[in-house]
């Protein structure tokens, strides 16, 4: 009887350590990628309560209520290489020649050459200072996360 109880107590201690370890492991190391950003289980629980995290068709976790500006930018697919020449050095020789030609070309005074001047643009209407500006239309806000009454 005493042996059985001792075994039970040992089992309880093992189980408690296992459960505490599970909590510690999750808090310390478990991160799930939501929109590409590593997110802790605590945050995912918070997000899931407002249905702000779901699994997309491609299997990735996404936040459907996140604004575009809040979404992390996906890293560029092209990886910069060390041997890639700098942009300044990539100006082609033909472009250099074209730039030289433009610089050397003399400017022509069209009026002095006897040509008709270009038609004048109609003058802009002056704004009536008494007239009030039209009220701006409110910009619709993006659909944000809200408390779920389900």
């Amino acid at each position, binding site marked *: 009887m005493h042996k059985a109880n001792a075994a039970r107590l040992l089992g309880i201690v093992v189980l408690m350590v296992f459960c505490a370890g599970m909590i510690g492991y999750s808090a310390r190391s*478990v991160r799930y990628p939501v929109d590409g950003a590593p997110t802790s289980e*605590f945050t995912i*629980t918070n997000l899931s309560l407002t249905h702000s995290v779901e699994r997309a068709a491609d299997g990735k976790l996404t936040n459907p209520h996140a604004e575009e500006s809040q979404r992390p930018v996906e890293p560029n697919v092209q990886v910069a290489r060390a041997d890639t020449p700098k942009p300044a050095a990539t100006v082609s020789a033909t472009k250099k020649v074209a730039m030289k030609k433009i610089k050397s070309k003399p400017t022509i005074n069209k009026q002095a050459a006897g040509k008709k001047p270009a038609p004048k643009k109609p003058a802009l209407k002056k704004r009536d200072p008494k007239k009030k500006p039209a009220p701006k239309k409110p910009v619709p806000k993006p659909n944000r996360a809200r408390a779920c009454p*389900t």
Partner: protein
Amino acid sequence: MGSIITRAKRIRLSRRLTQISTLVLLNLGFLNIWFANAQMGALRGICSPVLYCHSCPWATTACPLGVLVNFSRLQIVPFITLGILGLVGTFGGRLVCGWICPFGLLQELLHKIPTRKLTIPPKLSYAKYVVLIVFVLAVPFFWPKAPYTFCDGCPSSVIESTIPWAFVAYWTPTPGLFNGFTARFWVRAAITLAALVFVVLVSRGFCRVFCPLGAIFGLFNRFSLFRFNLAHKKCNNCGVCAKLCPVDIDPITQMNTAECVRCHECTIHRHIHMGVR
């Protein structure tokens, strides 16, 4: 005899105080009314070990069943929730059902309504395991968009979340707070009403037949750290403890089974007591 009545009163009073204190602790969000920066809802990333809906406007913590449903839907493992449930279950089994669960308190109060009381067949208690496997784990896992999860029919959710949010939406009309009296609302209201009528007629009916959290904690009842022990020398098989038991089990023969909610009603004779042994 006088000491037994005093002991029974003391146990019931301390149980009520614990249940009410837990209810207050689970609703610390009301502090946001006076202290705007209290941010009591920030703790909702962690679950409490009781059935209390996190969608309640004042809820402090998350509901473990809600977390299990949501994580099944996302197909990821809720390590923290499983750890908390494991720790609490290993400590006292279904002690939380009898002593701190607010929905248990509601059931006990409703059962005091003087009507004809019913007994249910013991085999019906296996239904809660079906509810756990099907509606908490399987349905959200395989059909994430299906509105047939446990949360969609949870009476606790309707009482603690849908009705309060309907009031909030009525006083401060905000789009999205309450979806209105849709067909889904009426289905959920009907389920809740049926569950409440059931607990008026059957003592702790929801805990015994439907509660998946009770099913989880019931697994720990036999070997938990604190469990009931019988003093064989003192017991004279009077049967009083069986009559007092709210879940209709015989504490002498069915001690520490998965059905016992550890309310301590059977301990008033001191023949049964809780201990580490």
